[in-house]
């Protein structure tokens, strides 16, 4: 199947669900319960004309991305260390299993007691993404070709070359996969944290306000904005990571 036909099929699927949504909104005929996709898009375009919309988008994006990038860096470094030190792996495993299992809402409630609401989305994005990146990267280190490592050891190859030419190429696909799924989780959890903590001037705060005032159009418009933003960031990040990994592969 060509990429054109698969894209076409995907777009047709999207169109099918949009039509279904529209018909459901017509059937319910109550804009407080369900607005039509046309009304939601119109409201989104209206909001996009306001400076406050972009400011909220920018604030949320920045805070969530700081948490995400920090988790990515920490996850990779800890995975690299635990893959070399078995005792550290054993020590860290319960921590990561606990972080992975704690519901995001519980984390938010806990963190609300420790820090100001403006930092919560960063922290929540961090703790949500950290175990995803850690476990994926750790698995990646396990797939590193042991025979290549043995070869490098016999030839007494410099450690930075071993890292650059053996470890990084083995781990990169796992990091890309973790970053890709982690970014979606970061946005979901980060916005949830903003809603619960009512952090002012954020996407979450706008969603919270819209819900209180039963502005369903706004809830849908902001939700569409989150989906678009999350998708755009995921694509950008994937391209960026692929570029970095290609640069690593082609450098001597």
């Amino acid at each position, binding site marked *: 199947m060509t990429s054109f036909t698969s894209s076409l099929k995907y777009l047709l699927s999207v169109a099918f669900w949009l039509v279904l949504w529209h018909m459901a909104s017509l059937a319910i005929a109550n804009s407080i319960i369900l607005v039509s996709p046309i009304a939601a898009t119109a409201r989104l375009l209206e909001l996009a004309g306001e400076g406050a919309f972009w400011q909220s988008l920018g604030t949320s994006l920045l805070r969530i991305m700081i948490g995400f990038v920090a988790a990515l860096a920490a996850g990779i470094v800890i995975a690299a260390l635990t893959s070399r030190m078995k005792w550290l792996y054993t020590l860290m495993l319960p921590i990561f299993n606990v972080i992975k299992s704690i519901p995001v809402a519980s984390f938010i409630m806990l963190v609300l007691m420790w820090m100001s609401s403006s930092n919560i989305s960063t922290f929540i994005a961090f703790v949500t993404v950290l175990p995803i990146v850690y476990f994926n990267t750790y698995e990646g280190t396990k797939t590193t070709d042991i*025979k*290549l490592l*043995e*070869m*490098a*050891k*016999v*030839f*007494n*190859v*410099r450690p930075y*070359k071993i890292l650059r*030419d*053996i470890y990084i*190429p083995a781990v990169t696909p796992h990091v890309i996969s973790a970053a890709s799924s982690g970014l979606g989780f970061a946005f979901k959890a980060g916005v949830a944290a903003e809603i619960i903590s009512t952090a002012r001037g954020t996407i979450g705060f706008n969603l919270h306000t819209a819900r209180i005032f039963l502005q369903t159009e706004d809830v849908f418009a902001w939700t569409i904005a989150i989906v678009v933003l999350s998708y755009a960031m995921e694509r950008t990040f994937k391209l960026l990571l692929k570029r970095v990994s290609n640069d690593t*592969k082609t450098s*001597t």
Partner: protein
Amino acid sequence: MIPKPALELRYIYKNFGEKNIFTNFNLNFPEVGFATIMGPSGYGKTTLVNLMLGIHKPDHGEILGFDERKIAVVFQEDRLLEHKNGLENIMFVLRNPAKDDEDMAWELLTRTRLAKDAHKLARNYSGGMKRRLALCRALVTDFDLLILDEPFKGLDVALKPDIMALTKQRCEGKQVILITHDMQEAEYFGGYIVDISNPPLFFDEMNT
């Protein structure tokens, strides 16, 4: 120059699970030149290489002198960086590559008929090309000891004599341990030949 300690395996015992590979195995090597180890499959030739390289540890016994030397190796498998090109694979093993090293890399690539494919990724090489590249990677280094585990296996018959001549030339005055099934190869390189299936194995007490 201070002479390096002798290369020696003493009283080696090695099992993999239930399978016994070596029992009270002893082997020592000449100070210079080729020492060829022959023998049928299943007698532990590659395990021996792994013991000498420190990849495997013996259950009992001593392995002496190997960690005192700069070792280069052609493994039984090519062990190339498949995502790197031919030249990059060679340069990978050089600690401080200088212009001379790169010139040497190109000379080896030329003499093994790989120069025109030097910028192709190793994953696109044929089996024979990979074997030649693995040999170039070993020969480019300034080794004291070269370990060759069936290095000419799968080479084009027309190319093999030139590749063997190049190997012999680059190994002059060095210690070389060659593992092979091929008696013609062993005879070409001269030096000592032992059959691993017929211990005891003491190269320095044998005649060529």
